[in-house]
């Protein structure tokens, strides 16, 4: 419980900073609106205001500060606007509605989970191959590293188009992009984990005349568990980034799609609330893995 106070302090500081930033960010549009509404603003000419700094404008028009916090299409929405939009679009709307973030979150989540499962499976298989075969060690690892240097934002549309041309669309292409990002940390972590037993441990098995299979199941695999879980946490977050990026070029809904349509129509509040929904979802996934990790390692006597 002692951790609560520092966490709340940091959150309060971020929210406060955010509010402070909202005023100058939105001041120009706010002043223009207020002027149209008949208010006296300084300087009165839009031309002059354009050349002035944001902070100077705030200093001269302090009466407008409160109005900057409740713009319809602010450059930077205020925290309470994002919070109320989040509430509005998760609780108040029907779950099946296309304006409900739970609906979009579910679409993203299902692609994330499928991609994460594929990526993790692939990552573990590759790691097992790399650890047991010198040829795979030399050939697969460099390609795995190269694969991660290609910007996913460039690759995602190609994956979508290629898979569409073979008749695959909807969930699967997004899961592929998601798996593409998530297999890598699993490979790296598992290779390190499967190689973590020292020479003495390997010699010990040799004195029992154990075969490779027994060495894998009895020593390498259990020894790799702490490494696997560390990787899974990174992988699940990467999988979600992949799913969101995969949603940008397609019209099937999802948090990524929500962000993109928000930016088309200048709906900054919608973008930010989708962003927060994504962050909350990712944090929940990481927390879920932490929970499984704690339980598993505890049962194994490793923590």
């Amino acid at each position: 419980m002692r951790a609560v106070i520092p966490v709340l302090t940091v959150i309060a500081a971020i929210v406060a900073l955010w509010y402070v930033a909202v005023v100058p960010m939105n001041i120009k549009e706010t002043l223009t609106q207020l002027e149209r509404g008949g208010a006296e603003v300084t300087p009165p000419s839009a031309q002059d205001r354009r050349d002035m700094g944001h902070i100077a404008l705030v200093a001269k028009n302090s009466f407008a500060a409160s109005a900057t916090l409740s713009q319809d299409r602010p450059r930077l929405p205020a925290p309470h606007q994002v919070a109320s939009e989040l509430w509005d679009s998760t609780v108040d709307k029907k779950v099946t509605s296309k304006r409900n973030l739970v609906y979009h979150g579910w679409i993203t989540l299902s692609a994330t989970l499928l991609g994460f499962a594929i990526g993790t499976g692939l990552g573990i298989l590759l790691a097992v191959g790399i650890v047991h075969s010198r040829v795979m060690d030399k050939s697969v690892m460099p390609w795995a590293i190269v694969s991660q240097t290609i910007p996913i934002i460039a690759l995602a549309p190609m994956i979508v188009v290629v898979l569409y041309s073979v008749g695959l669309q909807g969930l699967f292409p997004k899961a592929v992009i998601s798996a593409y990002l998530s297999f890598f940390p699993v490979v790296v972590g598992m290779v390190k984990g499967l190689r973590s037993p020292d020479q003495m441990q390997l010699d010990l098995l040799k004195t029992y005349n154990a075969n490779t299979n027994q060495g894998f199941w009895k020593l390498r695999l259990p020894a790799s568990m702490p490494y696997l879980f560390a990787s899974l946490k990174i992988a699940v977050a990467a999988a979600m980034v992949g799913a969101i990026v995969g949603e940008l070029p397609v019209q099937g809904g999802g948090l990524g799609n929500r962000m993109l349509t928000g930016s088309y129509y200048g709906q900054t509040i919608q973008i930010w609330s989708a962003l927060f929904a994504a962050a909350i979802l990712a944090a929940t996934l990481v927390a879920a893995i932490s929970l499984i990790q704690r339980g598993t390692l505890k049962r194994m006597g490793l923590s």
Partner: protein
Amino acid sequence: MAPDTSNPVIKAEALDLTFQTNDGPVHALKDVSLDIHKGDFVSFIGPSGCGKTTFLRCIAGLEHPTGGSLSVNGMTPEAARQARAYGYVFQAAGLYPWRTIARNISLPLEIMGYSKADQKQRVESVLDLVELSGFGSKFPWQLSGGMQQRASIARALSFDADILLMDEPFGALDEIVRDHLNEQLLALWARTEKTIGFVTHSIPEAVYLSTKIVVMSPRPGRIADVIESSLPRQRPLDIRDSKEFIDIAHRVREGLRAGHADDA
């Protein structure tokens, strides 16, 4: 039981081992000849780099000699390893942290395909042998260093090989624990009648435990002296104050010094 001197369990003749390293060849063992008979307790003592561990690893089939001949139970060390002819105890206990003590001890039994019932019964009996009964369900971190090392000895004993190879098993433990474990090891040796090869740095430990002390010297690793101990097989701890014990310790020290003399 009188030691059987006709047919050695381990026989090394003119054994040679050269490692190829990046800094050129390292002559780890040179012209090592030694017979170890059934029921012997043989200690290998010498400074670091004298090849005592390497020789033990050769017997275990973990290193491969580059010259000479070596037989274990009348087979090559490789065949003996495959026949699970020995139990090996390393300097560190090396217990799996994710297994309980009982499951650590049953690890070799699982690998060798013993039945579940047989595993259980053997684990119980070796736990008793190293005086760890009742600790089977504990995890390694719940045990002291000395208890962990006893558990690792139990693991090496569980499949009842006739030979026990121990590479500085008590090297990392303090003197008091070490004395206690030495006493226990002798009792265990008397009960099981195993042939033991024991690598150590400590002169008192070597003299107290062994029926035969092999003094080795470095660069290249070779045997400087082989001392047949005249101490009785039954040895209380205070035998270390006897004249005989001190004489043997003196001879070991002389052998070690001689090995170093032509080094300098």
